[in-house]
């Protein structure tokens, strides 16, 4: 039996546990922050108005999940939630590479030429992984995190479902749709391994009973992703490439630094402003 920590105060009594816990929550929060930033860049550009409404609802919910996780960090004495989201240096962010990738070529304000096929597959992959991670977090030794995971999971169910519907409908439509989904799977696969990486404190995260191992998460993910591809007649891309460098250690792409600048532009103008 691993020891449970029922409150932030209890966690703060144990410095090693606290450091490990913070590392994990930054991964969770930063993943949600970056994927929802990429989602926000689709606003007004989705294939039709219903999709625009649906995708922006998902994005808004996911931003809410990130906010709740930053608030957990605030309760642990790490800093103010809004500051944590906006004012860290790029190398202090812990998100996976997959969620920081650009949506396609061009810029949101200037000639965006985004790939909705990639949006479908990347989001499906992330939401499937997030569901599996949330299920594991419901048993986390940090009880406030387990409670938060239960809460997030009930909303997140609809997010995963949404991207599944797109796959189900498009995979059996035209050759063009099949081809674009298969290309998107290949592109997603370049970064998919970044999701299962628990970072430099990965072993402690597992030992402290905060989350199950990256291998376990990966196995569950691969089984479910593969089944979906087979049912949809899409091409299973096989074992993904191992990582060369990892966002869990704060190493990010240039695209990430641009995203972060956009994301925090308004906040940095006046961090004291009340919204």
């Amino acid at each position, binding site marked *: 039996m691993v020891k449970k920590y029922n409150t932030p105060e209890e966690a703060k009594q144990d410095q090693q546990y606290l450091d490990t816990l913070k590392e994990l929550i930054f991964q969770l929060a930063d993943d949600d922050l970056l994927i929802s930033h990429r989602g926000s860049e689709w606003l007004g550009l989705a294939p039709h108005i*219903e999709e625009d*409404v*649906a995708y922006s*609802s*998902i994005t*808004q*919910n*996911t*931003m*809410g*999940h990130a*906010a*709740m996780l930053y608030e957990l960090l605030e309760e642990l004495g790490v800093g103010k939630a809004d500051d944590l989201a906006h004012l860290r240096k790029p190398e202090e962010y812990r998100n996976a590479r997959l969620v920081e990738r650009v949506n396609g070529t061009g810029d949101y304000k200037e000639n965006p030429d985004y790939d909705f096929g990639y949006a479908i597959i990347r989001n499906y992959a992330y939401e499937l992984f997030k569901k599996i991670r949330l299920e594991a977090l419901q048993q986390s030794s940090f009880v*406030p995190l387990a*409670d*938060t995971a*239960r*809460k*997030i999971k*009930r*909303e997140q*169910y*609809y997010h995963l*479902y*949404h991207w599944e*519907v797109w796959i189900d409908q498009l995979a059996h439509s035209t050759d063009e749709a099949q081809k674009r989904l298969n290309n998107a799977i290949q592109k997603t696969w370049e970064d998919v391994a970044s999701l299962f990486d628990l970072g430099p404190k990965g072993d402690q995260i597992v030992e402290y009973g905060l989350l199950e191992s990256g291998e376990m998460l990966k196995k569950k993910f691969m089984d479910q992703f593969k089944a979906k591809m087979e049912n949809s007649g899409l091409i299973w891309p096989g074992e993904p490439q191992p990582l060369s460098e990892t966002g869990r250690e704060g190493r990010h792409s240039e695209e990430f630094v641009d995203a972060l600048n956009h994301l925090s532009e308004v906040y940095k103008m006046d961090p004291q402003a009340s919204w």
Partner: protein
Amino acid sequence: MSKILSSLEEKVRDKVQEVKDPEITSVSLIEMGMLDDIEVNGSKATVKLIPTYLGCPALDMMEKDVVKAVSEIDGIDEVDVIFVKDPIWTSDRITPEGREKLKEFGIAPPPLHAHEQGAWEIECPYCGSTRTVLDNMFGPTACRSIFYCNKCKNPFEAIKPV
């Protein structure tokens, strides 16, 4: 909330009952099943609320509205609103009165069972028919979906079961 309230706590509850969901103005926070607990210590009131959807922008407004309403009570000088993590809000927390008022507002209340089994049976808030189909899982706010009634041919919104 089942504990016995002091008379001042009852006054606080009555004030919270007056605070409506800013997005569905016929339904109060209590009818939405959002009230977890009320405590009064001296002149300080603490109101514990259960947040509905995490990204819901209405939560901030609700907090301000509760502070404002409860501050009007004689004998209360300080109001603290806390959004609790446990219990979590589920759509079956909406009270029977809340469900009726949602219908009056043209919004179908969530089905009482069915989460994660796919098909939910939703009654049209206008004609009561269950010959309805899901049009869009995501409506104008995070917590609502859009349906279409095949009987009376009206589109309508429904609270998503969570």
